[in-house]
């Protein structure tokens, strides 16, 4: 509800939860486009890492709030955002961009593979100028890198 109040304050009038949801759904094609458009600039280096966050989701159980309105019970779920940060040089200037990300349930290799396969499909491979992947020692990620970046 704090977020709704913040949105309302930003636009200068009351904004309903449904309106916010509609706006969010309208923006989702941009997210799809981001994940699937070929990379304009192939990074020389990609750093990979995951961040754990709690995302509050709507459950099945209906509860009643203080104003006796029926609402779906909400509960927090731990999710990991797998992030790929790309680096390259353009006209002598160092550039960086988050080239892709994936909200996943774990850092298992199957989850990393989804992100890496997509990056390869979008052009991030050695033939196009990708030189290195930088990562931590997470076992699943190492396996995924070997599968997606090294095998033909």
């Amino acid at each position, binding site marked *: 509800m704090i*977020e709704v109040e913040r949105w309302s304050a930003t636009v200068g009038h009351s904004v309903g939860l449904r309106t916010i*949801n509609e706006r*969010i*759904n*309208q*923006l*989702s*094609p*941009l*997210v799809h*486009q*981001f994940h699937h458009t070929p990379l304009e600039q192939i990074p*020389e*280096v990609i*750093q*990979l*890492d995951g*961040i754990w*966050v*709690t*995302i*509050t*989701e*709507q459950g099945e159980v209906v509860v009643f709030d203080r104003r006796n309105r029926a609402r779906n019970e*909400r509960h927090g779920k731990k*999710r990991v*955002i797998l*992030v790929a*940060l790309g*680096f390259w040089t353009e006209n002598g200037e*160092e*550039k*960086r*961009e*988050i080239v892709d*990300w994936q*909200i996943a349930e774990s850092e298992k290799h199957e989850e990393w593979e989804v992100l890496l396969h997509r990056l390869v499909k979008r052009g991030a*491979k*050695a*033939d196009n100028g*990708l*030189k*290195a*992947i*930088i*990562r*931590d*020692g997470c076992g699943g990620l*190492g396996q995924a*890198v*070997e599968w997606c*970046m*090294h*095998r*033909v």
Partner: protein
Amino acid sequence: MVYAQSVIDQRCIEHSLKNVRDKCRTELKGDDHREQRRQLLQEASAVYQAESAEQAKERLAVWSTQWGEVAHESVATFERDFDATIAYYQLEGVTLEWVRSTSLLERVNRQLRRKFRQALSFGSNVGAEVALYLQIQRLHAKWNRTSWWQTSHALSLNLQQIYHP
């Protein structure tokens, strides 16, 4: 196994040194060993200041001999996968800050996590994806020295093209 043209798989040196730090805290416990721990880590860190992979390996061998008796687990930890942490020496003409560790990404991730703490509740994964997307666009605008007005205007035009091609 058939390999494609090679992409170097570099393990983060900061993570490697952190593992050594954690291990030596259990091996060389307490205030009495504080100076020893500091020295061990300082020398471990200096291994990565070598000018070539060969020199780094030589430095590791010296370091391992020196610390093997008092901190053999720390030595084993540092030696494990060491070759994967010096793969970056094969790269030429690439900014060292990009290839030695994931520190830059971790800094970015801290910013993303902060955003998630502000907007804790998402009705669905779509909401979380969109929030993340917008935050990433903000970061890109900042890095490219573009105003948020310009970026959001471009996004709006892009969206119009998607809905009305």
